[in-house]
């Protein structure tokens, strides 16, 4: 056995050390993120030309473009997800502002807890809760009849509004947390200075509070958008047949139709959609990706 020269040996040891340090991250990235996506990418480009015979081709993507139900569902998912993100932002902003700047020391953690409590139950249970509220024989319908505002049972499930409602509810926590973090670092004196120099509520909000909260707004919006676009349970349960969420299309291709290549192509389209919209959002608000991640 010939010994390596000592300098080479220490270099080797250094490299090994680095490799071992990086191994968990590399494994996680490789096995759980990159590998499945490569697999899906490869699958999405394979067309079935005969039973059990596949060839490379763009057929799955052409199928997506050619079938209106597919790309309409896709566009609808994109549009509703953006809408859900905006509504979540508008509802969460005052809540976060209150928690960050107006709530006293004692009530602050309590308010945070109240936002968190619904998330102790699974999404399925939370959504079932909404179904009990909204269905024809549900709580709201019953109350409306009792109050004399409705003559018969009212069905409030299985429409776009109920889907949006459920998704907004599910996204709020993920918007409130980064917003509260961003707003907490806003010095109260700056808000006061904004008023002192003659600013109205709107001016102070527009020129001082919102610019300061921007990293939180972008971070929250990205998280809520991604969670919404990829949601499955809420649109299916609250939207029923009218839910038409793109994840359902993926599910049905993989599980019902057993058409994995088509499902993979859909999955890739969804990934593309998320990426493009997040990128657009960052560009429009002038925020850096790294900066946003740091604040989130």
């Amino acid at each position: 056995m010939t010994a390596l020269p000592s300098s080479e040996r220490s270099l080797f040891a250094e490299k090994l050390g680095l490799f071992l340090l990086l191994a968990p991250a590399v494994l996680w990235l490789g096995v759980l993120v990159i590998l499945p996506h490569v697999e899906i990418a490869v699958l999405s480009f394979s067309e079935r030309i005969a039973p059990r015979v596949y060839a490379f081709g763009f057929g799955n993507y052409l199928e997506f473009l050619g079938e209106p139900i597919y790309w309409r569902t896709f566009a609808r998912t994109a549009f509703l997800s953006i809408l859900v993100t905006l509504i979540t932002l508008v509802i969460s902003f005052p809540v976060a502002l209150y928690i960050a700047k107006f709530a006293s020391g004692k009530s602050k953690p309590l308010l945070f807890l109240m936002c968190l409590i619904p998330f102790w139950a699974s999404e399925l249970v939370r959504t079932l809760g909404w179904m009990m509220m909204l269905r024809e024989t549900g709580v709201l319908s019953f109350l409306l009849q009792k109050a004399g505002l409705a003559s018969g049972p009212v069905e409030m499930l299985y429409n776009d509004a109920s889907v949006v409602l459920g998704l907004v509810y599910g996204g709020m926590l993920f918007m409130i947390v980064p917003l509260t973090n961003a707003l907490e670092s806003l010095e109260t004196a700056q808000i006061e200075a904004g008023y002192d120099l003659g600013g109205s509520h709107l001016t102070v909000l527009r020129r001082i509070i919102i610019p300061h909260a921007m990293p939180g707004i972008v971070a929250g919006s990205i998280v809520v958008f991604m969670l919404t676009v990829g949601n499955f349970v809420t649109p299916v349960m609250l939207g029923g047949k009218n839910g038409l969420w793109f994840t359902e299309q993926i599910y049905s291709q993989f599980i019902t139709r057993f058409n994995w290549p088509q499902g993979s192509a859909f999955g890739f389209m969804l990934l593309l959609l998320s990426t493009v919209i997040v990128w657009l959002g960052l560009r429009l608000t002038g925020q850096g990706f790294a900066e946003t991640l740091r604040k989130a």
Partner: protein
Amino acid sequence: MTLVGNGVRGDFMSDSADLALLSVVKEFGAHRAVDSVTFDVAPGEFFSILGPSGCGKTTLMRMIAGFEHPTSGDIRIRGKSMLAVPANKRPVNMVFQSLALFPMMSVGENVGYGLACAGVDKIEAGQRITRILDRVGLAGFEDRPVTKLSGGQRQRVAIARCLVLEPTLVLLDEPLGALDLKLREHMKLELKQLQAAFNTTFLYITHDQSEALVMSDRVAVMNKGRFEQVGSPRELYHNPLTSFVAGFVGDANVWNGSTFGAQATGLGIKLSTGAALVGAGSGSGAVSAYLRPEAIALAAVPGELSSLPNRFAGTVSTVLFDGAASTLVIKAEGFPHLRATLPQAGPLAGIMAGAPIGFGFAPEALKIFPA
């Protein structure tokens, strides 16, 4: 400049004053933060409120700015009551303790913020921003981010941001607190010069007596929510009306004792440590006596101080050399603790610990207050 008509008939003093407070009280629960404060500030005056932290001075200022509402009393600016006027509509602008510059805006945008709020058109606003930055010595700084400025420059932006709006009154809440000592000394002079140049009324709040004494035309000393005394810096320093003012403004030797009756030259007191002194003041029974270190005359032998009714002999226990502010700690029979300013130009400049020394002071220099 806006001229407020004098048709509003208020209190006698409110009309000529830029700011008038009438029996203002502010209570937080059972705690009375501001207790029946009345004062007025004349146009162009530099008025300071000096007090220890927690004395209510910040609450008072926040009420004038409009961030707090008085429990009772009235706040008037040029004779008009401000109680129903929200903070953003008052002709008052504030320089915050932290300055509270808007970090996401440039210097020009910070200064222009108030103008934009007031609806001044862009061209005029631009000219006014340029003019004010020029006057505070920041010409050409419009596009600099405020985060890239030095402490003194940030200070000037904060002041320019207020002055550009031509307010009746500028409130300053310890704006020099965050600066280092050298810069603070420099900014004191600069603030005073700015105030004189703009001839705007300044209301300044501080716990630093040197800031208040150097810059102000008049100073109010505040303690436990009340004004102890309002007067010129000289008046406060030389003729304090209360024990608190005597102790808080300037440096002093503080002694406890009791009176033993009027003497030919003043009120006779006997310190709890034994020395018998003659001072100025009132009271009988237990008293506190205040004596400024620089009011003590020093001599190598007590005989040289024959004109002073209070003269004693002692020894130097420590020399605290601090340039012009050097002091001697003197040990003398009947005195607990005595500090005297040591003039560095006199014959005693080279005195060492252990040397015998004579000291004395005029009766009017020893201020006596009921304890």
